[in-house]
């Protein structure tokens, strides 16, 4: 019944996903059986016992002990089996192995921030080596978020002031989507990330040298990439539409009125300050909600973003 699995469930990128899917399909078969049984009985009774004369009498059947025991005990046994099956999978999913690679995850409106054991940091893009167990130690800086990777069949909430854990062993190279599954406001539906499963050697290269493809990119092009991947797009539009933050369209080189009543010219230094210390000066009419990107972007990446904003005429 592989076609059914492929129709109903996303791609499997971990062995654990297969385990979850087996239970999913088991429950599906049980459900389908009982649903069709109930529906068939309804249709059959409605047809077979349709009223033929207005004053029909019917037998008085008040109960049937044997039948009632059967329809209580059989479902009871089935649900107990389902319970243990689900419990078994859940224990596997919540107890990480000791030797797992530990990556720290911080959720904040509306970006995912990852920190690797060697101190490297990324935003919205998590890179993990193929075939190695990874434990995520997660927390939130503001409200509750939830780390959800459909292809891994895992999900856990990120709470402020507390750590929660999630672990997985990726078993297929590729890129998988990461969703925020706990409602967190305006950018909830765009709080997306990507998980890149790389071969062990590619992962090491990346960890040591960074991403070589982006290193060769011209600045505005790199900026465009960062604009999407670092979550700028959630709040800053490119077409002049007002979002949670000012649109980038035509912003460079113009003077803006700040919340404290002063004017500021949007130049390279202003943009740099806005990225690294967003609360320093807020454009009039907007809330001070932007997170700081201090330490999350390299110097070249900051310049790339500034060049990208410059190009939005």
């Amino acid at each position, binding site marked *: 019944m592989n076609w059914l699995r492929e129709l109903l469930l996303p791609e499997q990128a971990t062995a654990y996903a297969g385990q979850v899917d087996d239970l999913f399909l088991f429950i599906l078969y049980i459900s389908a059986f009982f649903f069709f049984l109930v529906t068939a009985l309804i249709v059959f009774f409605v047809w077979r016992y349709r009223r033929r004369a207005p004053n029909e009498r019917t037998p008085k059947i008040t109960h049937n002990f044997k039948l009632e025991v059967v329809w209580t005990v059989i479902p009871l046994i089935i649900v107990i089996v389902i319970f243990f099956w689900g419990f078994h999978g859940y224990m596997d999913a919540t107890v990480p192995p000791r030797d797992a690679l530990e990556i720290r995850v911080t959720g904040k409106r509306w970006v995912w921030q990852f920190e690797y054991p060697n101190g490297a940091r990324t935003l919205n893009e998590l890179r993990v080596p193929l075939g190695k167990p990874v434990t995520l130690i997660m927390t939130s800086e503001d409200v509750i978020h939830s780390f959800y990777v459909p292809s891994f069949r895992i999900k856990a909430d990120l709470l402020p002031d507390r750590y929660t854990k999630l672990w997985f062993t990726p078993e297929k190279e590729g890129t998988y989507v990461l969703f925020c599954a706990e409602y967190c406001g305006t950018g909830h539906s765009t709080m*997306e990330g990507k998980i890149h499963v790389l071969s062990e050697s590619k992962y090491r290269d990346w960890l040591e040298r960074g991403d070589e493809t982006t290193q060769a990119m011209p600045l505005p092009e790199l900026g465009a990439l960062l604009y999407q991947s670092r979550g700028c797009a959630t709040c800053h539009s490119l077409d002049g539409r007002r979002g949670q933050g000012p649109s980038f369209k035509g912003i460079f080189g113009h003077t803006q009125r700040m919340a404290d009543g002063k004017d500021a010219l949007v130049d390279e230094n202003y943009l740099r300050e806005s990225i690294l210390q967003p609360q320093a000066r807020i454009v009039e009419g907007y809330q001070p909600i932007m997170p700081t990107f201090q330490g999350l972007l390299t110097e070249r990446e900051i310049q790339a973003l500034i060049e990208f904003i410059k190009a939005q005429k």
Partner: protein
Amino acid sequence: MSSTHGDYLHEPKGWRSWLFTLDHKRIGVLYFWSTLAAFVLGGILAMLIRMELLTPKSDLLPADTYNKVFTLHGAIMIFLFIIPAIPAAFGNFVLPLMLGAKDVAFPRLNLASYYLYVAGTLILLGGILGGGIDTGWTFYTPYSSTTGGTVSLMVFGVFVLGFSSIFTGINFIATIHKLRAPGMNWFRLPLFAWGTYATAIIQVMATPVLGITLLLLIMERVFRIGIFDPKLGGDPVLFQHFFWFYSHPAVYIMILPGMAIISEVIPVFSRKTIFGYKAIAYSSLAIALISFLVWGHHMFISGQSQLASAVFSFLTFLVAIPSGIKIWNWLATMYKGSIKLDAPMIYAVMFLALFAIGGLTGLFLGALSTDVHLTDTYFVVAHFHYVMVGGTFIAYLAGVHYWWPKMFGRMYSEKMARLAGALVFIGFNLTFLSQFLMGSRGMPRRYASYVQDFQPMHVLSTVGSWILALGLFLILGYLLVSLRKKPDAPANPWGGATLEWETPSPPPPHNFDRTPVPTHGPYDYDREPALV
């Protein structure tokens, strides 16, 4: 049986006599129209949500507006419609009649409950004028303790509505205990009364917890007292425990009355004694009690302890059993019956099929490992709507079509009812079956925009919502049309054996000319049918 007096709709006269009425039937009717108005409002918001989701981008509504719209849709449908609709509208109207009583035990408390409902509704809706809220109907902290908007005001509205619900519950418990007709012992009670009784227990026991929780939330927002917000030293997960301690039993406040209607309709239209009377009655009580012990199944991924999750999962499966027993009992009632598919029965069998889907998909969510994948996705949205719309709302429609002649003295067009029933069935399944599919494939809920892959399923769902809406407007249409006809409903159009059918349609203000003495059980169909 005839009465020399006018019916309750026309006697006494004047608008004051309606606004200050202590007649349970009039209060039931006031609740009926008020909750229906809330449903129409909530339904319009649902249509807006579906329109927005027709395309992947958030284009029709900006994300902030979308968030407010789904919050309002949930809050209105739950607090203003589905919790009060069946107990407060039909319970008020029918329960005293079924018991052979003149009124509920505390008529003034009953009126107070209605006005608390109105006050709570006005406060809640007043919050929209102040800008609305974007917390979701679940008000999760710390989001709700920090976001802008009129959260405190609207939460206070829900707090007031809670008292309305408690008052109704207290009233029904006292009424069932004290006002049964002579000779009507507990096992001669119609099952609707049992269902209402179980519901009332939950209303009285669980609603105060919601009230306290919401009050704490207001205190945190207004006085900055740290209870749930970690920035103030609180614990956000504590809110979820408190909230679901009410809101899971509340799910049964919503479904038990629906089941209670089905337990009336199926025997009448199968003209057969209910199968397993005691099993149905006791399973209602069992559901009411176990429902207090399963709240943690909403929180498997919230960071609660694994042991707690395992215990909650197990108890959740236990609550599935009494619900399953009811389905078998209803089916067994139809066996060897004399079945007539009039409108109420059409909705009753529709309920059986849709509630079966709602219940069975609960198995996926009760099991721990599959829940982790499915929770907070559209699978939950679909499951919830199959239980609440496919279950409760369809049962509500069965009740509307069943008691309409009694309430308003008019018969509606049976032909139109069948057409509308078909539209509702097709529209509903199209809307929500597609949501199971997108949910199991990973589409998270509460998304204003989504990735391209999910679009075909969203389009199906939106088209389904149009068909569903068409069916519902048709129902509203032919029911309103029926009100303009001459009174034509006999006292007992369906051949029911419960006491409400022994008084004229619509009943006189005092219900019965003399106190009825039940000479037979509520489902005794082995005697000559009492068609009028």
